[in-house]
């Protein structure tokens, strides 16, 4: 299994990119040559040189340091949102799928409402109402994303619970909590891991998009999307100000996409997550999703 994953050059490239990005950004306090926050106008727009490896921004702050700290901010918030989504989505999906009843009906109605709206629009509106800020973005994104996981997990549980090994466990008198914990959860996790990987790419995009719009990270905090927004007035004279953070976002998202694509071949042969590859997914699968193996 691992061997197959490692033999695909694209999955491997994804893994390398993600490890590299994580290392560089998480170690930013050690790696960054300067403090990313203090403004120093005499040093504004310095070219790349010994002191400032990538030069400085219009407020005289070290671009490399802001890039590293900014990535840490983007990734930390993406991971936190993901953790919240998983902690809500998986248990709700498991319980709704296995126990059915009122919880299931409520979940499906809520899902209908949330999925009737474009995700970004909904996140935008929720942040708009709560007010700008990274914490509010987190709440907004978690609020609109957990439903997808709950729906997919529920769908998997519905098909799993008729399988022999679950029926056998039930016949042996295992209580529902035991069945969910020992038999359903382990089978649900691999496809969810694929979804989560691909979702991290989408979360990075969403957080940087909302920050670019001015709704996320507030100045002077460095964040990739916010940095591009700050660079907007300089795109012609100083294009590198947007090129660095923009490329950083694209490479990171590409890494998650490559990694998720590769993981899917290994962890999700049934294709529960196939449509989600590009964030297009819904639990109702069109017929073509089934045999789409030959790529």
């Amino acid at each position: 299994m691992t061997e197959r994953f490692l033999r695909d050059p694209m999955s491997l490239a994804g893994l390398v990119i993600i490890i590299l990005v994580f290392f560089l950004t998480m170690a930013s306090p050690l790696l960054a040559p300067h403090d990313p926050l203090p403004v120093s106008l005499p040093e504004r727009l310095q070219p790349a040189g010994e002191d400032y490896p990538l030069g400085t921004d219009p407020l005289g702050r070290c671009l490399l340091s802001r890039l590293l700290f900014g990535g840490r901010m983007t990734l930390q918030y993406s991971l936190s949102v993901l953790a919240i989504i998983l902690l809500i989505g998986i248990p709700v999906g498991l319980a709704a799928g296995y126990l059915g009843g009122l919880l299931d009906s409520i979940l499906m109605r809520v899902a209908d409402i949330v999925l009737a709206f474009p995700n970004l629009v909904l996140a935008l509106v929720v942040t708009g109402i709560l007010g700008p800020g990274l914490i509010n973005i987190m709440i907004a994104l978690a609020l609109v994303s957990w439903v997808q996981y709950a729906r997919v997990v529920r769908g998997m549980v519905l098909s799993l619970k008729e399988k022999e090994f679950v029926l056998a466990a039930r016949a042996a008198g295992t209580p529902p909590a035991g069945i969910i914990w020992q038999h359903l959860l382990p089978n649900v996790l691999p496809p969810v891991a694929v979804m989560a990987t691909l979702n991290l790419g989408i979360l990075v995009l969403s957080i940087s998009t909302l920050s670019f719009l001015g709704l996320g990270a507030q100045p002077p905090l460095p964040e990739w999307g916010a940095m591009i927004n700050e660079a907007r007035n300089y795109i012609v004279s100083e294009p590198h100000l947007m090129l660095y953070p923009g490329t950083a976002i694209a490479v990171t998202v590409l890494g998650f996409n490559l990694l998720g694509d590769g993981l899917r071949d290994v962890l999700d042969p049934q294709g529960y997550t196939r449509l989600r590859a590009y964030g297009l997914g819904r639990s109702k699968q069109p017929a073509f999703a089934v045999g789409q193996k030959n790529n």
Partner: protein
Amino acid sequence: MLKYLAKRLLTLIPVLLGVTFITFILMDIAPGDPAEIMLSRRDIEITPENMERAREALGLGEPLPVRYLNWLQGAVRGNLGTSFTSGEPVTREIVSRLPATIELAAGGLVVMFALALPLGTAAALLKGTFGDHLGRLAALVGASIPSFYLGLLLITYIAVPNEWIPVMGRGNGLISLLLPSLTLGFGLAATYARLLRANLLEVLQLDFIRSARSRGLKEAVVIGNHALRNALIPVVTLLGITMGHLLGGTVVVERIFAWPGVGRLAVDAIFDRNYPVIQGYVLLMGVAFVFLNLLIDLSYRFLDPRVKYEEGEGKAS
């Protein structure tokens, strides 16, 4: 058919009720007094009397469910309240901005198909070759570039060196639409080219393709008339979901290119905490998204005559 339509439209109602009610609750618990926000946006002095009058005008004295029902009563008649900032009716503001957004979304769709059709077909025909692998990588890269970054790149490296390409607003007719549509359609084109490739490969293995070939039809006819048409059906299914990305994407694109559409109205409203406009935008997006999906479901019939409408769901038999 009519029964199906009626049923679909009926399911729309609880969804819209649900989401507008949720936004109402969120606005209620959000910090800040709407009356105060409205006064400050209109540069009216905040005195107890003015506050009292604003509260009354907004109906804030009533409990939340009553306020929601009042809003709903107005909404059914097309009255979504007045904007905090301009004092104009929200409905009029949204309607006047709508053509620009529809134009942009249509442009994005055109770009998407114009890129995805040839690229997807080529990738399927070149399956397994170097070009195909390059295509997969290109699609993944295309889906990884944030649209706001792509928009700025297009401005910097295409519009600025070529002065005849406008970058702001929609004052110059179709040519103003060029870069915004490209920004909006590019990322989706990458995804769709891959989907089309996968579908085409599957269809090309079916019996009717072999029989078409054995009848001596030209390969171009086999691909163009027989295979492509069938490969497009599942692509259309996905269009419904893509509409969401398109509608969301317009917000970003409109901001970058100063495009005077609904998305920009919404972002401005969000910064101004202009609640009536935000609420109107939510309603519009919900209605638009559901109607577009309905339209797409209906269009299967033209692509695939086997589709029957029953039990409220379009099923390919």
